[in-house]
């Protein structure tokens, strides 16, 4: 008798046990529809002759043929790899470094932190212009240094097809590394003091304390940061448009600008969808193994 509680109680129990799933599922369903549904839609569009507006006649993979026949696409892909790896690595290093430095009982912490964060608040439509001035040899740093007497100072990456991509990194790091700092700082702040004390007693230098005690604890924060930075890198659009406009030539084109150009400037929805599909597949190939190993390590 006691083994079979009333039906009401049983449903309540059931509900309670399932509550986590019940809570997550609607959100999961949203993402199934709005993310995966739309990805499927895009994948389908990439196999149609869609131009200015989507049409739904199946034509196979010819849009992919066109995509891979476009020289600009190769540039975009190559740039994505150069840009993302540099951007993620540099932002990460700066983020960690600044977070650690800021964590040293700095008096003006609030002010400094806001200074580091603020670039993210500014629209790149305008800051891009400023960066363009600063990096332009005729207007900015180069001219400045030359006027100050360094006649041979040269800093012309912005107008050099081979180096322009690195100016994107400079500006992107400027914009986002502050946020990486914030993520790490928040992580640092949730590490238990006692553990730091133990490390101090164990004779660890501050450097060693951070590298071998604190940062491993922040492993999940690394995951957050990598994902955020990767997302920023992959989607960097305003930045490219405002700073280089993809130039010189299309030397700094990126998949995001490529996709945008084809989808909305050139009315080549099909090609754009094909490029989007290629990009998503690339991301899956890189992110999934990383996620897999991370989740296994931090899951439990």
């Amino acid at each position, binding site marked *: 008798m006691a083994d079979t509680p009333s039906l009401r109680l049983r449903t309540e129990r059931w509900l309670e046990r399932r509550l*986590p799933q019940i809570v997550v599922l609607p959100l999961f369903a949203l993402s199934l529809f709005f993310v995966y549904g739309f990805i499927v839609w895009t994948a389908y569009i990439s196999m149609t002759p869609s131009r200015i507006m989507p049409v739904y006649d199946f034509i196979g993979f010819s849009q992919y043929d066109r995509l891979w026949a476009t020289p600009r696409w190769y540039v975009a892909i190559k740039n994505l790899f150069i840009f993302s790896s540099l951007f993620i690595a540099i932002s990460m290093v700066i983020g960690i470094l600044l977070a650690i430095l800021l964590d040293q009982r700095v008096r003006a912490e609030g002010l400094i932190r806001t200074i580091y964060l603020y670039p993210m608040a500014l629209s790149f439509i*305008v800051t891009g212009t400023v*960066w363009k001035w600063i990096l332009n040899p005729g207007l900015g740093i180069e001219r400045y240094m030359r006027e100050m007497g360094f006649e041979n100072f040269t800093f012309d990456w912005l107008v050099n097809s081979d180096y322009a991509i690195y100016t994107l990194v400079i500006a992107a790091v400027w914009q986002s590394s502050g946020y990486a700092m914030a993520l790490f700082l928040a992580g640092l702040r949730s590490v238990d003091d006692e553990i730091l004390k133990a490390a101090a007693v164990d004779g660890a230098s501050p450097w060693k304390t951070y590298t071998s005690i604190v940062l491993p604890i922040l492993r999940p924060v690394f995951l957050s940061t990598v994902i955020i930075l990767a997302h920023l890198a992959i989607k960097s659009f305003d930045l490219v448009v405002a700073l280089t406009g993809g130039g010189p030539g299309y030397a700094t084109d990126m998949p995001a600008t490529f996709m945008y150009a084809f989808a909305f400037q050139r009315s080549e929805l099909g090609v754009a969808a094909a490029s989007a599909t290629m990009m998503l597949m690339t991301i899956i190939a890189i992110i999934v193994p990383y996620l897999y190993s991370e989740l296994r390590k931090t899951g439990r």
Partner: protein
Amino acid sequence: MRQRSIGGIVRPKGWHNVLMRGSLFLVLGLFCLYYLFPLIVMASTSLKSLAEIREGTLLSLPRAITFEAWGKAWDSACVGVRCDGLKPFMWNSVAMAVPAVLLSTTLGAINGYALTKWRFPGADWIFAMILFGAFIPFQVILLPMARTLGQLGLAGTVTGLILVHTVYGLAFTTLFFRNFFVGVSDGILQAAKVDGAGFFRIFFQIVLPMSIPAIVVTVIWQFTQIWNDFLFGVAFTIGDSNPVTVALNNVVNTSTGVKEYNVDMAAAIIAALPTMLVYVVAGAWFVRGLSAGAVKG
């Protein structure tokens, strides 16, 4: 909230320490310069007259300071046919950003909580799949999203925009919270369960107060992303209900008109002020020691 220093561990004194502190501030200061330099250029440009900009070098400091550009950007710059600056659009952004930030943060927090602290089979899969939404290019979802909003009758409404931001913010908010909660001791949750608290009570009364750092970074991120979003704002709102980024864009961008850099710069700074305010306010909650004394072990 008071800022607690690291553990109270004794720091060395003397010249060695002065040297260390000195180089610490040097590095911090150099980075401040790096981050500030463009802002200084913006601010100084915004304080110049247009004539000075045309003749002078762009990076030089203003010769005669004028706040004209600021006034113009705030309430008389033309944004299409109306010429009352950014002012009328600020509120649109607030009305959109605040609910969207609250909603996406709350849902992300609950998601992250359920996925880590009430693990069920497949939780990691669900997390990974939700997370992947972070990488979907906005360009490709624009049209299907427009279609969906149209079908829902939300096309061109603020509600629709809030929905969009919430849905696509979820990947990030879930990520932040999930990764924070992984580090929260299970023991505390067990204690709360024994104390008779259920899923939501534990969440709101125990877990959430401990996750202030996660809330801070999430709110900062979401607010920035939503406030600065242009594409969704432009595609899913109409005219007077445009968010401020669209207005800013309209002030700044001109294809064949005269460029007023001073107004552009002032407008950009004005449009960023609310976000900076969020940074300052939220930043004050970067606190240490929230989990102090919780468990032994």
